[in-house]
């Protein structure tokens, strides 16, 4: 059963002078529990596709169905709630909030849900323990290595128990050893039932996933 279904997606970026077609009539289905890699050269539209899939950006044309729900007609507030409950994000540059410590960063998605301080704390500690960072809870992002930062980001993506995790080059800023650690962690998450869509440039880590799709010039070619 497909948990993500993109139908005829077109995304065009328009400025006063130039019109850039980022995605052109893209169709894609991702099955529940799948670990999918998206590959392609820089500027081919893979991140745009991931943003549309993650409801961070809207297509100019086409339908986005997530977990069976058509999202095109949703208003901003509904999209925010839907993202919070269904999706988790991992970014190449981690996007941790530097003024918050590790525990507070991980708690972030739960701030936008009805939950008590205590339950947030407990869940955050539990997830941090899963990613092996229990001992760094009070540290700030600037005090962590790149690999640790990405593990915090994974914990943040996991805390809301989303059905889908969208990872945009999660190992792009890490050395190979740390990249391997992160991939192991993502495989564990996937084995627990979470669907993962990962954009990557690294053929070797893409091969570890269940399926690879390739993009070129805004079109899916494979």
């Amino acid at each position: 059963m497909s948990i993500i279904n993109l139908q005829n997606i077109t995304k065009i970026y328009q400025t006063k002078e130039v019109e850039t077609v980022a995605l052109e009539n893209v169709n894609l289905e991702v099955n529940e529990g799948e670990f999918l890699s998206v590959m392609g050269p820089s500027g081919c539209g893979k991140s745009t596709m991931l943003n549309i899939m993650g409801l961070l950006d809207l297509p100019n044309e086409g339908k986005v169905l997530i977990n069976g729900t058509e999202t095109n007609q949703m208003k901003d507030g509904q999209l925010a709630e839907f993202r919070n409950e269904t999706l988790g994000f991992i970014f190449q540059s981690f996007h941790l909030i530097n003024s918050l410590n590790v525990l507070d960063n991980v708690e972030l998605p739960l701030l936008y849900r009805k939950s008590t301080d205590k339950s947030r704390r407990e869940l955050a500690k539990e997830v941090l323990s899963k990613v092996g960072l229990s001992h760094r809870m009070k540290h700030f992002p600037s005090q962590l290595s790149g690999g640790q930062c990405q593990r915090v980001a994974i914990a943040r993506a996991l805390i809301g128990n989303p059905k889908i995790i969208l990872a945009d080059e999660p190992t792009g800023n890490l050395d190979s050893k740390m990249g391997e650690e992160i991939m192991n962690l993502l495989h564990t998450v996937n084995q627990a039932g979470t669907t993962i869509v990962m954009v990557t440039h690294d053929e070797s880590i893409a091969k570890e996933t269940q399926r690879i799709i390739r993009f070129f010039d805004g079109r899916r070619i494979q």
Partner: protein
Amino acid sequence: MLKQNKFISIISIAGTALAIMMIMTLIVVNEVKNISIAPEDKRDRTLYITFQVERERVNESSFNTRSGDVSPNIFNKYLSDLKTPEYISIMSDFNPEFKQTVNVEGESNYFQFPRRIVDASYWNIFSFDFIDGNPFSEEDFQSDVRNVVLSESIARELFKGEKAVGRTIQINFENHRVTGVVKDVSTVFKYASGGIWVSRRSHGAVLLVARDKQDFPTIIAEVREAERRYGIENEPWFLYFRGPENQKVNNMDNMWRGNNEEEFRNVIKIENRRRIFLFAVLLIIPALNLSGFSLSRIKKRTSEIGVRKAFGAKKHTILIQVLYENLITSLIGGFIGLIFSYIAVVWLKNWLLGVTDSSTIPLNAFLSPAIFVIVFAVCVLLNLLSAGLSALKASRMSIVNSLNKNDQL
């Protein structure tokens, strides 16, 4: 947020503090002049008549006019018997620089002290702190003997620590019996202040104390009726009492305020507009400056806003968060500004309050709940004006652009 952008935060707090200082100096001065605190603890239910205009119509366009503070005759005949006020009193002006020759009876040691001439009802209007003796009564006032109440410092100087009550002093070589001694009153209190309070009928200001503020319209109607009565009895002359004004209006700049009710109301309108304009300028100019800092702080947090929205923050959540965080800066600045405004008022009291350098400003005038409510309201307003636009822009930023730190502000 404060720790994230220390330099900008410090500048922003300092800017807020200066803005709040300017506004709060005006408000604190206004509060000191207006709130009901001892001894002028009935200000909120007092109406003031400080000026009368008597006019004789000569022809269509010209009048004979005589005007000034309220005369004792007019007071006795037209105001002293008003039915609704709880207390009615006429009192002379008090000028600490305008002094009389004073000595203890039988002694040739002469002093120079200022005085205020008051009636017996005066003592019901204010809450003096009597150290010894009592105020003079209505019977004392009506008797041939002139009575006085002395301030503590004058009694000490005159009697060198000996008991003053019951003794006789001479003011301009006329005997006066001392009935009481009160603690010194600051010249901040325009009508309660005085060095020596002498029992005599004087021209001056008339204070009408209502039992309840709701009685104000009835009292004003009675005053207008008194004017009409004067007109009937003294035709072709007619009378206009300026006011009666409440405490706030009475404290507005002591300028010429018209020869009739209509002119007076126009002057009040203009004065109120002037105040609103001044307040708006004092609020908007710093708000515009501070909005630059606010925008700069938001720019530094573009990516954070993107992350928060990606993980489920709604537009209004971001809006509230930015305003709330900015409010913290505003409140810190507001608190510092309020302290500075206190310093400014104390330092510049001569100019701002028109009081003598030796006058103290009562602490409870500074710490009135109204001042704290106003400073909070001003902080919120300044916060909305300075951070409202950046908060709105932050809440509307596209998530993808925010995450990529594309400058949209």
